[in-house]
């Protein structure tokens, strides 16, 4: 797959071939990451300040994306919303993938009843539709931000577990694993030094996909009014707040959705265009 003559400086540096779509997708993701980090410094108006005398105002030179249902600047609110959408999703996906991958590798290496019990249990959790799971748990524990992060990570742990376990089971049958076992290495060493390096590429690609699922679920919950609560607002909550402007074709009802789409489509395109060497490392 790697063709050194047709690749640019980036591939010379990294030894991987990136294409234009992948690079531009990465650019958009980094842009949103930057926005999330520096939002308070770059927003043109305060998020709570009413700057327009009209509500659901149109796009203008001062208000780039128009104004919301109270006449606040929707551009600033989207920039600040990036912090909640990206922050909560990133925290949840990190917890879900860390625990899922750690459990998956342990199950693959340990085997036996630990493996079968855990697999049975997590498969059962996996067969609850994610949105429904979110609804029920949020109804139970409330929608504070830590509760949201915990709920989202619990929902996506079984998937990460299944994926990592399937990869780790393959690595587990390799000769070097047998050697390491004979050497008398213990479980933590086997997992961290023998299995993990061999499944890292696909696991990271899976993390990206799961991040998209989490962003979509979080936005969906916020859209239903069960996610991030006022006065804070993530992108899903912004759509909910301004859905009343839809019949007038207000830009405030559309732009938050576009923000979500730009992020999730970019992550999906980046993963789709990752060099095969990273994505399918275990397949080699």
């Amino acid at each position, binding site marked *: 797959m790697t063709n050194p003559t047709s690749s640019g400086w980036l591939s010379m540096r990294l030894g991987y071939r990136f294409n234009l779509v992948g690079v531009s997708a990465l650019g958009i993701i980094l842009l949103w990451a930057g926005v999330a980090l520096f939002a308070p410094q770059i927003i043109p108006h305060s998020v709570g300040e009413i700057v327009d005398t009209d509500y659901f105002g149109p796009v203008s030179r001062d208000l780039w994306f128009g104004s919301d249902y109270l006449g606040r600047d929707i551009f600033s609110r989207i920039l600040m919303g990036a912090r909640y959408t990206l922050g909560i999703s990133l925290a949840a996906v990190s917890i879900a993938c860390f625990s899922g991958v750690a459990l998956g590798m342990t199950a693959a290496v340990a085997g036996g009843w630990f493996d079968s019990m855990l697999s*049975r*249990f997590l*498969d*059962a*959790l996996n*067969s*609850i*539709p*994610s*949105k*429904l799971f979110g*609804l*029920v*748990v*949020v*109804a*139970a*524990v*409330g929608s504070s931000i830590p509760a949201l992060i915990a709920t989202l990570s619990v929902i996506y742990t079984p998937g990460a577990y299944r994926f990592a376990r399937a990869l780790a089971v393959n690595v587990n049958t390799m000769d070097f694993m047998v050697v390491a076992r004979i050497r008398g290495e213990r479980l933590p060493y086997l997992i961290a030094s023998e299995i993990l390096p061999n499944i890292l590429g696909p696991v990271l690609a899976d993390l990206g996909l799961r991040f*998209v699922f989490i962003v*979509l679920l979080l*936005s*969906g919950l916020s*859209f*239903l*009014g*069960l996610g991030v609560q006022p006065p804070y607002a993530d992108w*899903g909550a912004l*759509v909910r707040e301004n*859905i009343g402007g*839809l*019949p*007038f*074709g207000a830009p405030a*009802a*559309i732009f938050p*959705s576009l923000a*979500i*789409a730009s992020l*999730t*489509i970019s*992550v*999906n*395109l980046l993963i*789709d265009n990752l060099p095969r060497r990273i994505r399918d490392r275990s397949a080699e």
Partner: protein
Amino acid sequence: MRGQVSSLVVRRLLIALITLVIVSFAVFFATTLLPGDTATILLGQSATPEAVEGLRKAMHLDDPAIIRFLRWVAGLFQGDFGKSYANNVPVATLISGRFVNTLKLAGLTAAIAVPLALTLGITAAMWRGTLYDRIVTVGTIGIISVPEFMIATLAVLLFAVYLKWLPALSLTNEVKSLHDLVRIYAMPVMTLTFGVSAQMIRMTRAAVVETLNTPYVEMALLKGASRPRLVLRHALPNALGPIVNAIALSLSYLLGGVIIVETIFNYPGVAKLMVDAVSTRDLPLIQTCAMIFCLGYLALITAADIIAVVSNPRLR
């Protein structure tokens, strides 16, 4: 070898049953975690402690959780879903009409999405690598990466706001003619169809492409068979199992989709009922709706697994 298939199917059904038990356990305990005492919620803040105590006794709220769980499951089997806290109506009466509405929505979506997705998925695989294939592939990635409410809002914006062809809200009690039916169902069905088909197209295309990579298809190519003949006669019969599996899996996506779609279009279905129940903290209603959804989801993914087993000729 026949015995092998049936034992695998029985095994899968058993697993589904165990899963159902774990799921109902999870649903029950998640809902009993709800903060606040049910008796106090029902009687209001001004209730006397004696009244609260009496109601707790009458509702068996002081029993251990496991007893309440067993009683709840026993009730489910007898068709007794309990009474709604919010308006003291049996849950079964609240749900029955709504359930039919949701089934109608899901059935219509499936009737449109399945033929559409199969056509697009198979043709995309047939002309793999062409511009048409790239458009279909990028289009489906785009659709599965955006939230359902975005598809719904864009549909409202286009058809209700700019073109003014359709109403923005669904109200099924106004159906008088076929014209009304189309006007009311068009947008919810369209939104759901987009999501379901995108999943199905991706999986169908992958299944057909995989069979196209087999030696016997290469053989057919070498003997000079045309592309459509290659796909339809040689590849498709062997890809049928994975395709039906893909259909069942994608239809399970409907269950998540209806929650958003029924809310945004104000459609009187089970999902809308459940979202409302969550905001009013109506426990028995949440539990029953959640069980309906889990049961539907589990049935679909189990069906998908069983089809994959039965259609695998190596096991027959």
